[in-house]
């Protein structure tokens, strides 16, 4: 079972990320994917997230508790959700929008300039698809075929091709990155950039889990 949180700011297509991935695993990868999202009165701009539990068996507890994967597309969202990330988890982030700090030793860091890539392709709104492609390559929790099959109905018809291209861009970048890593140990963050490690924020004993 895997717990994943996609996060960013409202308007980046963060909920869509959860929907696409959830649909992909549930309908095309023969797994169970339960997607929930944080609802607040704010519609745009503030930190937002969608959560996904992927499992080979029926998901009983629908919410994530200690996600092992955090996808961050904004600094705000990163700071808000990073303390929940499991100690041995993986952070996947937009290198232009998120500066990871503090760096936790056991966490694996994978960055992609997803928004920049999307801008280069013509529109930053495809940033989430670049990120999903990258996420798919890095985590291998879902097949790229399933992800592409999940797109119709969740992205506008006339932009389907562009979304697929954005996905491929991120996916290829991820595969390349992994190949490079095989050659040398991961050093995504330079040691001198490493700020002092602080303890994760204390949580209220009974947190609202959404």
């Amino acid at each position: 079972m895997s717990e994943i949180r996609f996060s960013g700011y409202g308007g980046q297509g963060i909920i869509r990320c959860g929907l696409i991935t959830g649909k992909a695993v549930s309908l095309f990868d023969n797994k169970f994917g339960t997607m929930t999202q944080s609802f607040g009165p704010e519609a745009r701009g503030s930190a937002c997230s969608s959560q996904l539990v992927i499992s080979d068996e029926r998901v009983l507890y629908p919410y994530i508790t200690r996600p092992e994967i955090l996808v961050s597309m904004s600094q705000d969202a990163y700071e808000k959700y990073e303390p929940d990330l499991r100690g041995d988890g993986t952070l996947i982030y937009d290198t232009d929008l998120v500066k990871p700090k503090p760096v936790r030793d056991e966490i694996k860091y994978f960055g992609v300039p997803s928004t920049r890539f999307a801008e280069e392709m013509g529109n930053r709104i495809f940033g989430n698809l670049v990120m999903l492609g990258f996420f798919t390559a890095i985590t291998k929790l879902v097949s790229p075929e399933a992800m592409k099959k999940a797109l119709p109905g969740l992205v506008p018809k006339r932009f389907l091709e562009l979304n697929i291209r954005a996905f491929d861009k991120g996916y290829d970048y991820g595969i390349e990155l992994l190949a490079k890593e095989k050659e040398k140990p991961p050093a995504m963050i330079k040691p001198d950039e490493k700020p002092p490690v602080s303890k994760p924020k204390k949580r209220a004993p009974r947190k609202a889990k959404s």
Partner: protein
Amino acid sequence: MRKVKADPKGVLTGAHYLDGDFAIAEGGLAAGCRFFAGYPITPSTETAERFSERIPFVGGIFIQMEDEIASITALIGASWGGQKVMTVTSGPGFSLMQENIGLAVMMETPLVIANVQRGGPSTGLPTLTGQSDMMQAKFGSHGDYEIIALSPDSPQECFDLTIKAFNLAETFRVPVFVMTDECVGHMHEKVIIPPADEIEIIERKWYQGPKDKYLPYKPDKDLVPFMVKAGDGYRFHTTGLTHDERGYPVLNAEVQDWCVHHLVDKIRKNAHKIIELQEDQIDNAEVVVVSYGITSRVAIRAVQLARKAGIKVGTMRMITVWPFPEKRIKELAGKIKAFVVPEINLGQIGREVERCAFGQAPVIGVTHCGGWVHDPEDILKAIKEAVR
């Protein structure tokens, strides 16, 4: 009772990734609902949005009314106009509907209301979950009456149970509630919508006899009267007042006794046909976890852990919460050490279990006020306490 296949026009056959709210709308369309009157309220609004998006291609009415009072009343009117009807709401809207839920009960009008529950009282927690309208569903309107309430634990069940709700509403001429909650309503999962010819629909109990002999409130053998619709020449009358078989108001104790008993009996005496429970490993159980909706799903994890620890624990998942499975609880109470009842309120259904257990087995509630679903550990703790 006439069973037919679903009208394929409304059935979106296939595998979908839907949230519970959307699945309720699809369930309604599959069941043949062609009239939806509603008012936006979090966390139920998505059902109305989905219905309004889909109905133009199916043929029917979506109307956003001026409030929930208007919504439920329009449903009653539309049901008498011959349509299958539904609405969706949450706590505050459900409160506003209560008076006319009573009217629907009194006029014996088939209709379906989905309540995507949130934390209350008052505005409470619009975007966070709760199960605190369970008693209101049963007792919210004034007077003595019975209704039917179902409680889905997933988007798939939102679809399935909405169809079931329509079938029950039509069979018993009664309002049926789909009592889901924000968690299930907003949770996306795979929903399989079968082909139309695999969906069984129960048609309204239409009257077939001679026009001048029609009595809108004369109970049939199964206690449920036959129905007609406006415009077919029956020139019938119906009222929210205490009435006789003709539907004419008669305001005295004798007719009141007949009228109210009839409303109550048609559900109570048919309870065995209505109640659906899912039981697991209940035969040798020392403890039985009784739960419904999202809580019943979360509780499974606690039950698995308890069984690993060697505790004989059974589960009773109530798909039908009202009418309440009194007999079954009574039966179990004599055989087990305790009931554990987790629910997202301060013990509404737990109290009902306690009543039926009649002092033969203690009831340990695992309760909280809403805003989150249970931590399975809390339920596990209660199970352990129960066998101690």
